[in-house]
């Protein structure tokens, strides 16, 4: 069972009106066999209207559904690789952000120093 199948199954048990795959297929305006194919295929493609309706049915955000579809298409190993890549990127970003904050302080100090140097030069003149 992939992530979308799992989420759909769980939501069918919770939803007020749509409680079966047949009803979900009707809501998505597709046949039950098309819905089965859509759910079974981890490399699925869907129209924007189907995406929007599915998102509304699942009660999740655009980003969440995007991530769900994207990660469904990944094998466990690819998913781990993606996590490692993102962890590395986030570590670098955190380093950059700390450095940038310090650089802004440095720039302020340099401006202050320049101001006093220029004032001193004016007084000397």
């Amino acid at each position: 069972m992939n992530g979308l199948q799992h989420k759909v199954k769980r939501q069918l048990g919770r939803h007020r009106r749509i409680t079966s795959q047949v009803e979900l297929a009707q809501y998505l305006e597709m046949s039950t066999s098309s819905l089965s194919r859509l759910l079974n295929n981890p490399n699925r493609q869907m129209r924007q209207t189907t995406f929007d309706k599915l998102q509304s049915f699942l009660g999740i955000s655009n980003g969440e559904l995007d991530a769900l579809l994207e990660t469904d298409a990944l094998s466990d190993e690819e998913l781990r690789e993606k996590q490692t890549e993102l962890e590395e990127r986030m570590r670098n970003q955190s380093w950059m952000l700390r450095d940038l904050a310090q650089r802004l302080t440095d720039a302020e100090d340099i401006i202050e120093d320049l101001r006093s140097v220029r004032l001193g030069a004016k007084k000397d003149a």
Partner: protein
Amino acid sequence: MHENYPKNRMLSQSLIGRETNQRWLMNAKRADRKSRSIIDSQTAEIIIQSERITQAPTAYLYINRDYLQSHAGALVMDMKNFDPYPSWRRRCTELGRHVAPWHWPEWGHTDHQWERKLMDIATYGFAASDAIDVTEVNSLLRLWWRTGAGVLTVAFEVPKRTAQEVCGSFANIAASRVQTNSQDVSADQLMKIDDLDIELDKVWDESLHGTTWKEGSED
């Protein structure tokens, strides 16, 4: 795992694990987008502060993702990381010079303190140089700001006296950082610099498809 462990529970646990991973990935992506936007706005802020320092408009930006990268003993420069402002392009046309200063004959010739500058960038996080002249009265003032593993260069054409003043203030603040012992020294970066052996008159220009440009050669 116990061999009588229910199969559907194993499946459900692996799904929960995958769902947790997916949720982590989604949150990480959101954090990544937010971080990138903050990095962009703070980088813009650094450029504004640089203009406040020099009291001049930016000539060009150069974003080096890894400033300690070298190739066959040459400093790696790449037009892809180079962002000249239109006024700088016009100015270079006016002067009959290449828009990228590493193609100028003065490059490397006068910039003897490059290794010292790398040390300053690694130690203090900032450095300035006015070693290259644009004209008899103006200098190419380059300000380097370290941002993680990378360095942002903000360059200006300013009168020589202004350039000297700015370089002086950079040195003053660097000295005060040593006194207060508050500098953010990256030991790894300092060790890398020790291992570097860059010949200053050589530039490896990646955008020229792997050809090494040397002093006096044609563009």
